[in-house]
């Protein structure tokens, strides 16, 4: 049973060899002339400002969490959409129920001020 995983192990090995090889080769052979501009954090060409690890509001976590919920919900639409015709009315009702439950959750989060940025 384990032998069937051999190609995956091989794949891992090749991936590691290529990764280490390319980075290692450039490190060994490449010329290094560092200066202040080169060592700066690359920020899409804009001059970076402030510290590297600043504190940021815990509210971002809430936004990320709510985003995750709706994101995962969207993902579960795809398999349903593909099978919609085979699932017929049952599938449609099932999905309607799913959206209803989610909708109530959405309304609840809204009412509790989950989308409010200012207190």
């Amino acid at each position, binding site marked *: 049973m384990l032998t069937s995983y051999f190609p995956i192990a091989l794949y891992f090995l090749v991936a590691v060899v290529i990764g280490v090889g390319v980075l290692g080769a450039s490190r060994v052979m490449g010329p290094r002339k560092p200066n202040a501009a080169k060592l700066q954090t690359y920020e899409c060409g804009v001059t970076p400002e402030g510290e590297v690890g600043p504190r940021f509001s815990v509210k971002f976590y809430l936004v990320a969490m709510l985003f995750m919920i709706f994101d995962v919900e969207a993902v579960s639409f795809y398999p349903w959409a593909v*099978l919609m015709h*085979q699932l017929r009315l049952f599938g449609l009702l099932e999905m309607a129920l799913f959206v209803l439950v989610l909708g*109530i959750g959405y*309304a*609840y989060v809204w*009412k509790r001020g989950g989308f409010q940025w200012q207190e």
Partner: protein
Amino acid sequence: MNFPVINPLSVLPEIILLATSIVALFIALFLPDRRGHQLNYLGLVGVLAAIAVLPMLWAKVEVGFGGAIVSDHFALAMDAAILVSALAAFLLGLREVEPGADYVALVLWAALGMMVLTSAVELLSIFLGLEVLSLPLYVLAGFRRDRTTSKEAAMKYLLMGAFSSGIFLYGLAFLYGATGKVSLASIQAAILQNFTSHPLFLEIGAGLVAVGLAFKLALVPFHQWVPDVYEGSPTPVTAFMSVGTKAAAFGALVRILTVALPAGIVHWQPLIAFLAVLTLLFGNLAALRQTNMKRMLAYSGIAQAGYLVVAIAANSQMGVGAGMFYVVAYAFMNIGAFAVVAALSGQNEEGAEIASYRGLAYRRPWLAVSMTVFLLALASIPPLVGFPGKFYILRAAVSSGGVLLAIAIVVGTMISLYYYLRPVLLMFTHSEETESPFPATAHWTAHVTVGVMLAGTLVLGILPGLLTGPLQNAVHAIYGL
């Protein structure tokens, strides 16, 4: 194309809980905040409706979700214990926490997860149940956001719980890796027919699964989170999770270990026996030193989990039956004890110190006598429900050759007498203080909870036969007889 048969009947109580939680959230949209606590009554109705359908479902075994969920007698019996603890969470929650739709929905979801865990017979559904159980409890532990201890409890519970979920899932992966099956019945068949890739995978899988659930059951040495979480969480939540989680984790442990992984081939028995002895000795010794009632009950809960796991270590039908009886017994006596603590504490949970129980029998005789009964039951004094509970476990341990386990139980019980009887002694000691540290009145629902648990403790203690008959069916159900 074939779709798996869903069969809503197999999850009818779960559907009722889910529907109630959604209705609660919906009503909360239109309810002013100050009336939010009234949603607790809705939660109560939902749980009572779920309890009401249990006898209807008892007649027939329902299989759902393509064989992933089985609503057999074992699942239904465990569901009953879980629903009773959810009932207590709502009855006690009316006053304790600032309840609202969040509280109601979270308790219902946690109970739902527990019930899925006891009826799941497929690895992924089992894990799903465990997660649905855990996530709401993390939030509930930190429900009193204004109190540091509550926040600390939530943080500790979340970190330990996340680790244990990971360990549990890793164990499930090993079981799948060893057999290539996800359904417990196929795993058992593969093991019995020797169709496994590597025997070591099974051993590792069984060990990791046991450790993952040991966190939830609060077995030593995976118990460190328990005292802080039980003390910091709101009392109704503590009552709910101390019983509900144990019932659910016990159910999963029985289904996975004793049924799917035959002990003759996969050697999980010594590990479980070792954990049991360690737990019931350490839990009882640590409880001796506690000065806070909730902390004392937390350590007593650890010790009680040790007794419960002895029933699994016995690895027999008798053991499983004894364990189920003990879960029900524990539900009555432990929730009862927490209900008294809740009835005696105000919004800020003052007065949870054992010392403040001094002279209680002269000020609040009803609560003091009830507390005495619950503590004596926990110490397994006849004719209370703890006595037949422990007797059945002892019998199961001895009849499967676990004499050392039986001795450990007896030693543990003797130690436990000290800390169970000390508050009783204090309650009946006259105190010079005229001022009571407790609020003058408790919400009527707290008294109802105490009354119901008292009735259960007494009736099942005197007539344990009421329960042993149905539980025998449940044991047959799980062993597929």
